[in-house]
């Protein structure tokens, strides 16, 4: 063992000596072709590569640190949130003095100070406010989001950048790898997506557990759980007594809901309504700890490093992590859905009938497992002219198209094999649907 005396003189070495062992030496587990590139990889990684980190929360803070210390020097980060006290148990780039400031800006500044030479460009904005030209700039995009809708939108955006030749072959130079992480409590997952080539977020949609909603009749008539009472206060009493929107971070709002929920619980002899539970149900809080964020972000950053450098094989293509009972990980390959909405590069069939109303068609798109859309708007071409069937926004267009909702598809002039373009919060750009009409006998 070395002793302190030996080490009094600082050792001056190269800052990147650790990653250089992987980048400047080859080995049996390197990706084929890595040998020829050895020596050029670190300059490429540091000077040419641009990484986009989406989200500057629990995963985002970790990702920025991890990527900066894996040698990446050109990083952008986008997040529309500001810092809250409850972030500080895991989002380690923020301090109490930063509460209220934009996450992306504070995080970027911290990384630039701690890791000199690393340039982090913050974007304090919604992901949807950036266009294709923005997303096209990056070598790899890494997602650390807690929203499925946002994740689906990013997936859709990255697929919209793909170019295909006339034969339908993918132009691989248009493909930007997407690495996606997610956490909840002690569980998490990481995945590597090569858009147009491997399974995408939509292909894997069934992996996400759907949000639990209590049936309204239970909330209104037969409450049994404290959660039912809280939902009653939130969904029934609040709109009746208050005009403002519920803000889950406003103590006055939560206190109001808590007291109403407690009154209702007392009426039915139900125990267990607490302030913490009220806030949890109202804000749909997902529990989170530092350790899980650290693990999943590290897994994602490791994949970014490997995908960019080819220094060793990649995750193929999905990792599940859970450390409640021991430490369980499982890496496996999720297969592509050949009829995927997003990555199949072909219009997707939707079964319908001429008698079906437009409302019914929209509901089908929202409730079917395959689509799971959130608020579809539809346009098509009838008789060579563009026709807007329904649009939820802007308000004027909504008003103009609302009467179409009750009309049948036949009345709207839609036919078998009709192509319909669909916009939705989960989609960047538009989906192409083909109506497959079942003729009534």
């Amino acid at each position: 063992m070395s002793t302190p005396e030996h080490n009094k003189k600082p050792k001056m070495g190269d800052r990147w000596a650790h990653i250089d062992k992987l980048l400047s030496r080859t080995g049996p587990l390197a990706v084929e072709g890595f040998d020829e590139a050895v020596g050029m990889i670190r300059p490429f990684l540091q000077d040419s590569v641009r990484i986009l980190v989406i989200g500057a929360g629990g995963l985002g803070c970790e990702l920025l640190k991890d990527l900066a210390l894996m040698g990446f020097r050109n990083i952008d980060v986008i997040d529309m949130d500001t810092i809250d006290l409850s972030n500080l148990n895991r989002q380690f780039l923020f301090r109490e003095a930063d509460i209220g400031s934009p996450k992306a800006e504070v995080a970027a500044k911290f990384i630039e100070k701690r890791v000199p030479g690393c340039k982090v460009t913050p974007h304090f904005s919604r992901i949807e406010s950036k266009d294709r030209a923005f997303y096209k700039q990056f070598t790899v995009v890494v997602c650390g989001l807690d929203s499925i809708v946002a994740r689906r939108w990013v997936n859709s955006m990255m697929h919209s950048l793909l170019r295909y030749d006339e034969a339908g072959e993918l132009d691989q130079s248009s493909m930007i790898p997407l690495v996606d992480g997610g956490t909840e409590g002690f569980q998490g997952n990481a995945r590597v997506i090569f858009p147009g080539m491997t399974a995408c977020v939509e292909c894997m949609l069934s992996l996400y557990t759907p949000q639990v909603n209590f049936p309204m009749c239970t909330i209104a008539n037969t409450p049994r759980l404290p959660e039912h009472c809280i939902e009653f206060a939130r969904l029934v009493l609040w709109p009746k007594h208050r005009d403002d929107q519920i803000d889950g971070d406003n103590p006055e709002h939560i206190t109001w809901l808590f007291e109403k929920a407690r009154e209702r619980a007392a009426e039915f002899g139900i125990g267990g309504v607490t302030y913490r539970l009220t806030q949890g149900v109202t804000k749909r809080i997902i529990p989170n700890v530092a350790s899980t964020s650290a693990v999943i972000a590290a897994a994602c950053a490791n994949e970014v490093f490997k995908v960019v450098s080819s220094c060793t094989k990649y995750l193929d293509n999905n990792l599940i992590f859970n450390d409640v009972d021991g430490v369980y990980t499982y890496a496996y390959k999720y297969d592509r859905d050949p009829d995927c909405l997003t990555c199949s590069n072909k219009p997707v069939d939707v079964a319908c009938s001429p008698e079906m109303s437009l409302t019914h068609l929209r509901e089908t798109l929202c409730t079917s497992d395959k689509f799971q859309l959130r608020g579809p708007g539809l346009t098509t071409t009838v008789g060579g002219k563009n026709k807007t069937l329904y649009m939820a926004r802007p308000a004027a267009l909504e008003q103009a198209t609302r009467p179409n909702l009750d009309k049948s598809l036949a009345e709207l002039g839609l036919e078998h094999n009709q192509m319909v373009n669909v916009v939705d919060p989960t989609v960047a750009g538009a989906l192409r649907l083909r109506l497959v009409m079942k003729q009534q006998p």
Partner: protein
Amino acid sequence: MSEDKNVVPSQREQRYDRQLRLWGDHGQRDLEAAHVCVINATTLGTETIKNLVLPGIGKFTIVDPEFVTTEDLGTNFFFEERHIGQPRANAATELLLELNSSVEGNAKVDTMANVLAKDPDFFRQFSVVVACDTPLYALLPLATLLWAEQIPLLVARAYGMIGYLRLVTPEHTVIESHIAAFDDLRLTRPFPELLAHARSTILDDLSLDKHSHVPYPILVLRGIDAWRETHADLPRTRAEKKEFAGMLASWRRTKDDGSGVADEENFAEAMAKCNTIFRSAPNVPSEIQALLDDPKCSNPDKSAFWQLCNALKAFVSVHNDLPLSGAVPDMHADSRSYVALQQLYRSKAAADQAFIKDALASRLPNALVARFCKNAAGLVVVRTPSLETELTGHCGKLSDAAAMSVGDETRAFEFYIALRACDRFHEKHNRYPGTGAHAHEEDAGELSSMCADVLRNAGVDGVTIGDDCVKEMCRYGAAQLHSVAAFVGGMTSQEIVKLVTQQYVPANHTIIYNGVQGDSRTLNF
């Protein structure tokens, strides 16, 4: 901390909100009472501490003799350029403490071996000790001391693309394992109050609305009464369970307008549960019976866990059952019927808790007794082999681990042996393979024969370590990749939270993370 859940949470509670929802206020208290020692402020060391400072561990102490180098800046987030040449322990402590002002941190600039020689008591003050990126052989004296003190030791390493985490503890006990929800409703062996309550429900007298809101446990209990009129035993075979469900189905009412069977969700629930309700399983699960048969259960030491197990044993000998958890899952029912049922289960659970409390040899806090009873079906004891056994013994189970790992894509067993061989190499040459001035490939031959030595000394026959594993280890040259260190640091910190809160189950006992596959395996030998 405010235990009154009826007021706006304090700043502290808001800060920790997202974790309090997982391990509760009592878990947080345990965490805040803990003092963890981290040997070596390597990237792995500081990442581990970071994930403990953020959730608010009480204290940490770093023991590290080294000084910050330029190389450290390229992998460790808790040093700045101004720290070059300063002790790593001091620099890391300074920057880590910025994360949470409630946490206390100390630095000791010395080698673990020196501290151990000068002041062995030093290590007795800790709840857990974590040794980062240290060869196993150098840890033996410390491991022996901690083993005798029953202080858990974690050995963690980030070595190129390979991560390693080993728990060393004679015993760790878990009260709240969080493995499953323990809401066994005891429908095949109802307690008297429950049975009386069910029998007081006359289904035929109820309106359709009431009838369709009778909680399914009552339907099942009434069903069992009816079944027993014609059957000696409960439904056991698939056919019998189907027959039972069919009987319940026949009890459903017709719709008020006479147009077919009413859609009664409570009956659908009861029928769907038949399979699990009539599954033949011992009243006391075999894992729990094994605990009750443990010599420590009859002769408990001073730990609360074994004293509670001793009382549990007395409970089981009287009741031939575990204490009731008192939890009733949500089900289709009207509010009154559900709350009445819940009340019955809660009263019985409280009575069971009172029995345990009376059976205890010495007084323990009520809240602890209640948690123990609620989670009695999920109690866990983890015992690992000592480091000495692993390093010096012929370990028969290692051969089993080797046999089981054939075809394992993560190559966890091979990388474990390769890591042991790297230590051997280090012991001989005072450097790791793939470090130093010469070409890294030149060390592969010797490392390969050292892998064979490790296997031979451990008594493992018929296994060879792949050349590709050996060559990759030489390529890695003990590099600390930030990504791998952060991954292992995340795991390590969570294992520490488990150890100090007695919640969740620590991995038993050696985890190998393969950063190439992005996957890990737990080896137990």
